[in-house]
Structure formats: C-alpha cells, structure tokens
C-alpha cells in the first residue's frame, strides 16, 4: 500500500515537472513578452520615459536570459515555495493566489456539497422509482443539465436576476460589504449572491451524477445480494441505502477525485468570469491574455497537481470503500 502511494506520487512528480516545462514553452510561444506589450501600450499613450525603465524590469524578471535559464530559475524557486512575481500586478504570485484561495475554496466546497447533496438523493430516487413520473422529471432535468454549458446558463440566470429580480447579481458581495469584516449582514449578503453559482452548478453539475447514480443503482438493485437482503426481512430503506447504494456509489468516488477536486482551484473559470467571482479562474485567464508568464505557469502547475492528487485520492478512497479492490 505504502509503496503504491510512493510510486504514484513519484509518477505525479514526474508528470508535474513535464507539464510545467511544456506549459512554460506554450506560454512563451507567442512572439514578444509582457514587457513588449507594455511598451506598446505606453507608446500608444505617448509615454516615452517608461521605455528606459523597461530594460530594468527585463533584467529584474530575468527576461533577458535564455529560455532554459528562465525555466530552471523559476522551477527551482517554485519547489521552495516562491512562485515568481506577477508582471501585471508587480506582486508575488503566491500572495495574489493566496488572496483568492479562500474564496475559491469556499465557493468550490459550497457548490460541491450542494451538487452532491442534490444529485445523490435524486439519482437514488430515480432508480428506486424507475419509470415513475418523478423519475421522468428527474431524467429530463438531468439531460438538460448534461447539455447545458455552465457559462451560458450563468449568463441566462444573470439576465433573469437583473431584469426580473432587479438584482445586481455579479460578484460575491455588494459594494458595501466587499471589504467589510465578517458579520451577519455580510453572510446574508454573500448568500444573496451565492445562489446564482449554486443554481448553475445544481443544474449543470448534477446532470451527469444523477445519470450515473441512477444507472448503477438500477444495475445493483437487480443483483442477488439485494434480493437476499430483502429476503432477510430488512427494511426497504436499509436495503437501498446500506446495501445497494453503498455498492453503486463507487464510480462517483472516481468522479469526485478526477473532476470535483481539481475544480476546487479552477473554481470553474468560465462561470466565474461571467459572474465576476473573485476566484483563481479569472486570474488565470487574464494572465494568459497578458503573457503574465509566472502567474499563468503557476496556475497550470497547480491545476495539474490537483488533478493528479485528486486521481490518487479517488483510487485510495475507492480501495478503502470497496475492499475487493487491491492496489498493486
């Protein structure tokens, strides 16, 4: 078991190094860098004094050195917890990400819990009451959710909130509460804004989960051990939740690791951009546009790390939940 984990971690480490290198190459692909863009902007504004300072910046950020040196310099510092400096904000990437991390995690956990608390009971209900009107309703709901892209749905809900409810629905807080300390009023304000991302994830995130839960449970309910449990005279609730669901839930654990955990840090970038949420996603997209390379590179490495660790966590939890699975 331990050797398995060590092996997987070693594999993940190699992958992360590879991904960091390739993403660094990709980020450096466009001609020019952040500073050439900056110079152009300043020139357009007619500002000439800045050009001499640009050279200083180039040396400070190491942009004058060859590509390989830039990469090794960045990655060795990265391991020590220094992710480099954002050109755009002229501040360490670590601080910028740190500021948004809390909100990203709160948002991700909130939507995660909400989605799963909704999807599992609905999936179980749909399977237990197969072909009932309730099942059909849930199926239609889940098909809509499966096909619906989150960022478009977010836009539609935003439209509804603005025109019908006349609510300024973007962001996580109203103007008055953005920098206010935590209070009951602030929490209520947060909840007023949180319903939109929650609703978006409820519709788009639950669709697939419901389908899988329903399909697996249907298969499990037909198996002899369920019949045996019923024959022993166990209550229906016990048969379903303790025997059948416990078996049928395994694929969902894999999804939790491979999709849900990585989304904690991406914070569903597209939806966040539409709704103007202060998560890491929009920061990343912006850094790509501006060629803010250390910022973009750090984000990609973190996304990859979470994806790989999420997969590992899923495999471990799966082995723990389902004792038939042996990890080699």
């Amino acid at each position, binding site marked *: 078991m331990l050797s398995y984990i060590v092996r997987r971690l070693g594999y993940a480490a190699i*992958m992360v190094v*590879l*991904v960091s290198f*390739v*993403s660094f190459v*990709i*980020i450096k*692909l*466009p*001609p020019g860098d952040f500073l050439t863009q900056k110079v152009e902007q300043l020139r357009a504004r007619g500002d000439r004094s800045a050009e001499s300072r640009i050279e200083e910046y180039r040396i400070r950020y190491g942009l004058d050195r060859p590509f390989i040196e830039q990469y090794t310099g960045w990655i060795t510092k990265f391991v020590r917890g220094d992710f480099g400096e954002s050109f755009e904000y002229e501040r360490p990437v670590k601080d910028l990400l740190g500021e948004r991390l809390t909100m990203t995690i709160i948002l991700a956990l909130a939507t995660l819990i909400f989605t799963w608390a909704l999807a599992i009971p609905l999936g179980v209900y749909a399977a237990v009451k197969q072909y009932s009107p309730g099942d059909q309703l849930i199926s239609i709901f889940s*098909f809509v959710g*499966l*096909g*619906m*892209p989150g*960022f*478009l749905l977010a*836009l*539609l809900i*935003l*439209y509804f909130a*603005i*025109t019908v409810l006349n609510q*300024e629905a*973007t962001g996580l807080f109203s103007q008055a509460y953005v920098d206010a300390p935590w209070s009951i009023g602030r929490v209520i304000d947060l909840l007023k804004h949180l319903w939109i991302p929650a609703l978006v994830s409820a519709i788009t995130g639950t669709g697939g989960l419901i389908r899988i839960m329903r399909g697996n449970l249907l298969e499990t309910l037909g198996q002899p051990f369920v019949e045996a449990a019923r024959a022993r005279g166990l209550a229906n609730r016990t048969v379903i939740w303790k025997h059948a669901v416990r078996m049928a839930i395994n694929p969902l654990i894999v999804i939790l690791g491979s999709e849900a955990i*990585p989304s904690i840090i*991406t914070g569903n*970038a*597209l939806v966040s*951009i*539409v709704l103007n949420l202060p998560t890491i996603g929009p920061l*990343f*997209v912006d850094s*790509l*546009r501006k*060629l803010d390379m250390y910022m*973009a590179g750090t*984000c*990609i490495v973190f*996304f*990859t790390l979470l*994806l*790989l660790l999420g997969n590992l966590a899923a495999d471990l939890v799966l082995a723990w939940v389902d004792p038939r699975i042996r990890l080699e």
Partner: protein
Amino acid sequence: MAKSPQEQKKKPVSQSYGALVWWKFKKNKLAIVGGVMLLLMYFSFVVVPEFVAPYALERRSEYTESKPQTIRFVDSEGKFHLRPFVYGLERRVDTAARRRTYVEDPNRIYEIHFFVSGDPYKLLGLIPTDIHLYGTWTEDPTASVFIMGTDSNGRDYFSRIMYGGRLSLMIGLIGQFLTLILGSVLGAISGYYGGTVDVVIQRVTEFLAAFPDIPLFMALAAAIPAFWSPVVVYFMLTVILAFVRWGGLARQVRGLILSLREREYVLAAKSFGADDSRLMFRHLLPGTMSHIIVIATLSIPGMILAETALSWLGLGLRAPLTSWGVLLQESMTVYAIRFAPWLMWTIPFLLLVILAYNMLGDGLRDALDPYGGR
C-alpha cells in the same frame, strides 16, 4: 427436406448490418428529429447563410443597438394584414439613461416579402445573386427588418448569427474529423503493434490527460499570435481543439483493437497474407467504427462549445471573423444584459445545436449495436 412455412417466413429477417442499423435508428423518434434538425441547420448556416440572412455580414445601418422589430399581422388600427409587416424605427433619446433608443413608429409600415433582392452575394461562393429569403420590398432607405435587433454598429443581429453559425458549426465538424483521424490511427497502431510504440503513445495520451483540458485549450489558444491572418487563426484553433482531444479516443480505439486482434477472422486474413496496414485499416478499424462514430457525434458539441468559450474570452477567433463565440463577446456584459438583451439570441441557437447532436448521438449509440440489447 421441405421447409416448413414458418422457416420460410423467418428467412428475410437475416439482414445486412446497415439495414439493421437503419431499422433500429428509424424507431428512435428523438434521434430522427435530432438528425433532421442538424441537416437543416447545417444547410442553412453552413451552405446558404447568405440567402437566409436578409443583410450582408458587414452591412451597417444607422440604427445602432436597436431592439428587435416585432413581426406583426395586425396594425395599430386593428386591421388585419395577410402579409406580415414591421413598423419603421424612430430614434428617441433616453435622457435618464443617456443613451439612444429606438421605438417603433406605427405610421411607417414595411411589408415583409419573401425572395426579395438585397445585398449582392455569391451563392455557394459561385453563383452571383442578390435574392434573400426575406426582406422589405421597398426603395425606402430607412426601411429595415431586424427580427433580432442590431448590434452596436447597427448590423442586423440575425444576419450575423447566420454567418457566425458557419464558422462555429464547421469548427466542430472539422476539429472532430481531425481528432477522429489522429485518435483512430494512433489508437490502432498502439493496440496492434504493442511494445515500444504502444508505450510511447500511451505515455503521450497519459500526459495529455494529466493536463487539465480547459486551461490547456486556453494556453494554446493564447499562444496564437494576434497578427496572424484570420484564416490561419481559424485553422490553428481547429488543430488545437483536435490535438487536445485525441487522447481519449485513441485509448478507446486501442482497447477495442486489443480485443479484436485475437479474433479468428484476423488470423484468417493474416494467413491469406494480408500485411499490417491492410489488417489494421481494412479488418480491425472498421470493427471499431460504430463505437468511434458514436463518440465523435457526442463530442462535437464539446468542440463547438470550446470554440465558443475561447472566442468569447478573446483567446480564440477575433473580429473580423464572425463566429458565435465572437458574437457572445458583446453580450456578456452587465450593460448589454440590461440594455441590449437581444444580443443573447445566439444562445438559443447554440443550445439547439447541442441538443440536436445529443439526441442524434444517443440514437446512434442504440442503433449501431443492433444485435444486442432491446
């Protein structure tokens, strides 16, 4: 030995694979509807958008950000017109919001005619003509028919959606086609040869899988230089979409090939002297075709959406190219939602395409395996 009447009756049941697939597909009404919807949409958006759209792509009018003109049959005096018409637009200045708006003027009535001449274009890129599906049949330069409003340059939004559909729908098709080629060829080679080739290809797909795909799309799309010509940008974006997505397909094809290559018919073909490429592409790949087609159909919407999302973020296609993603750029601001909500008309079209592909794909999945299941 004489056959009993029952046996004779049973005989025609033995049908070709194609006939069985068609027979099963026909029973799935939803899939038929999806397929017909797609055919219609591809025909009107990709083949003849110039004809369906009443105006040329860049045709500007003085009516900027005008709301849609309602198509009416009954005029302000309560008189019924057999021919639909729209009211002319009149400029108003909203002093409170400090912006121009347009209201409908019930005194100017413009009838909507079908097959009218308008902006010239070349049908199918060949035949010069100026006939449009509908329009106002009048010499009056202030006449207009904007059934979905206009954008900030006074261009008819419905026409723009029609033209934008061409790029958006084609990118899904071309991108998926490239994915299919890459994925099935590499998957087949990987599964058939095994050994070192297999290991290398598998490592590459694992590496692609380790990359979170939306950030990878974004990073690659951001790497397309801004000064490249629009056509090259479009081509590069298609290649990027295909490049990121082939891994999953290759893995599935490999799995199928692994099981197929142990079959007796493959041994038979081999003993007849078929070489590797013949075995792979004539005997093994066709066996995986049904599976591949289903996966392809169900992943085209993802491609279309990826293009839309990237262009919307400003990382994909850019003006002067017009795709649905480029159109969405304008409608994604709080200002636009409040004052020009008709710019969201792109979304229903997009959702319709996604829905149609899912319906068709679902039907194909059931139909392409006609021997099993119900």
